[in-house]
């Protein structure tokens, strides 16, 4: 990995605030962001990402080939990754835990995505607005795969009350609070940008200007949460710890290859890779807890929140950038 990329990433305020959150927990500072304040940040970020993304999609003109290909590839990856993950996890875990963890890694983390976007901006590399569309489209399919895996691979003696009807699988996949807010905000952003540009401007200070600051505040909280999650990771065992680091790297490699074969430009390729490598700690865990109570929530939430998320934020982003720099030919405009 390129050391200068690593340093540039680490010295971004977002990552620095994440660190001070982590350190606060390690030093047993009594700093606390009490519930439900983190929820406020998280709702705000989803709304703003979605709205900005909708504008981006509208502005990049939706229906060209490259866009459709990229979005299809994104969906495909979020169907494929959980299947691969499931096979690996079944070596050690039962069907329920394997499906829940695998689904988390197939889906995405919006905050990882926006941290990557900021990193990209700091490198003066552009990416297209429709990549937020890829983000939105990758959230749900992994949930779908996870629940279908449970439905078909679960032991026959699962009590009837826990039978997963297709309707409830679809409900959890698409109407989960964070999926819903992201997608609907995206649609609103799209419609507004299309029909009412002056309203986009009026939203700008809220959705764009203060976004980066709120992101930093939220990452401070995420740092504390991640650090608090670490002890329960130890209980999960070294297999899962290894999985939480190696799976994102593995996914990023597949992502780079796909991006290359689609001839994505540097910026888009990087974000595509980040989406593949990131794991969900919002939509998927919430859906799994609802529908697969047999899975231990501490497994899937501690790995994604306590290990994969920090890894991606701190080391993953520069690593994936190096990968992209190596494997994606520099685009000539």
């Amino acid at each position, binding site marked *: 990995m390129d050391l200068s990329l690593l340093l540039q990433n680490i010295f971004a305020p977002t990552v620095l605030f994440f660190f001070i959150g982590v350190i606060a927990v390690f030093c047993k500072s009594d700093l606390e962001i*009490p*519930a*439900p304040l*983190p*929820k406020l*940040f*998280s709702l705000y970020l989803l709304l703003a990402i979605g709205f900005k993304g909708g504008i981006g999609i509208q502005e990049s003109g939706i229906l060209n080939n490259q866009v459709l290909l990229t979005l299809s590839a994104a969906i495909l990856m979020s169907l494929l990754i959980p299947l691969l993950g499931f096979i690996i996890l079944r070596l050690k875990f039962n069907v329920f835990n394997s499906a829940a963890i695998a689904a988390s890694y197939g889906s995405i983390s919006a905050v990882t995505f926006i941290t990557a976007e900021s990193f990209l901006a700091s490198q003066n590399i552009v990416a297209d607005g429709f990549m937020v569309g890829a983000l939105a489209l990758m959230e749900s399919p992994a949930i779908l795969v996870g629940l279908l895996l449970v439905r078909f691979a679960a032991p026959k003696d699962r009590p009837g*009350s*826990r039978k997963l009807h297709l309707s409830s699988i679809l409900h959890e996949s698409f109407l*989960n*609070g*964070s999926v819903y807010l992201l997608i609907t905000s995206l649609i609103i952003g799209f419609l507004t940008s299309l029909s009412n540009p002056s309203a986009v401007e009026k939203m700008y200070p809220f959705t764009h200007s203060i976004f980066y600051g709120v992101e930093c505040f939220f990452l401070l909280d995420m740092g504390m*949460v991640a650090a*608090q*999650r670490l002890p*329960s990771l130890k209980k999960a065992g070294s297999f899962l710890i290894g999985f939480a680091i190696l799976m994102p790297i593995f996914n990023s490699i597949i992502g780079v290859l796909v991006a290359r074969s689609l001839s994505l430009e540097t910026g888009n390729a990087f974000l595509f890779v980040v989406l593949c490598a990131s794991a969900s*700690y*919002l*939509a998927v*865990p*919430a859906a799994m*807890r*609802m529908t697969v*109570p047999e899975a*231990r*929530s*501490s497994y899937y*939430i501690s790995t994604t*929140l306590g290990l994969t998320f920090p890894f991606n934020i701190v080391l993953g982003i520069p690593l994936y950038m190096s990968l992209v720099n190596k494997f994606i030919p520099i685009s000539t405009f």
Partner: protein
Amino acid sequence: MKRLDLIFSERELQAILNTLENANVPGYTVMKHATGRGPERVVTEDMEFTGLGANAHVIVFCEQEIIDKMRDEIRSVLSYYGGVAYISEATPL
């Protein structure tokens, strides 16, 4: 008069309240944002913003007969995600 304490995942709140209503309880009180640990699971504060939801604590003051009516249904709801239910004596002021 009895006091029934129910503690369970917020996600099941609606199901539990429906059960209470069907049994015609005279009233109930709900306190959300409770966290805790049970025999298997830990419920922490960060589960609220990750969407997993914290626990709800429901208190019902009612007659024993009403409790008897609800027992099976409550038990079956609590068996899904877990949760506890305890009865104690209570006298109206």
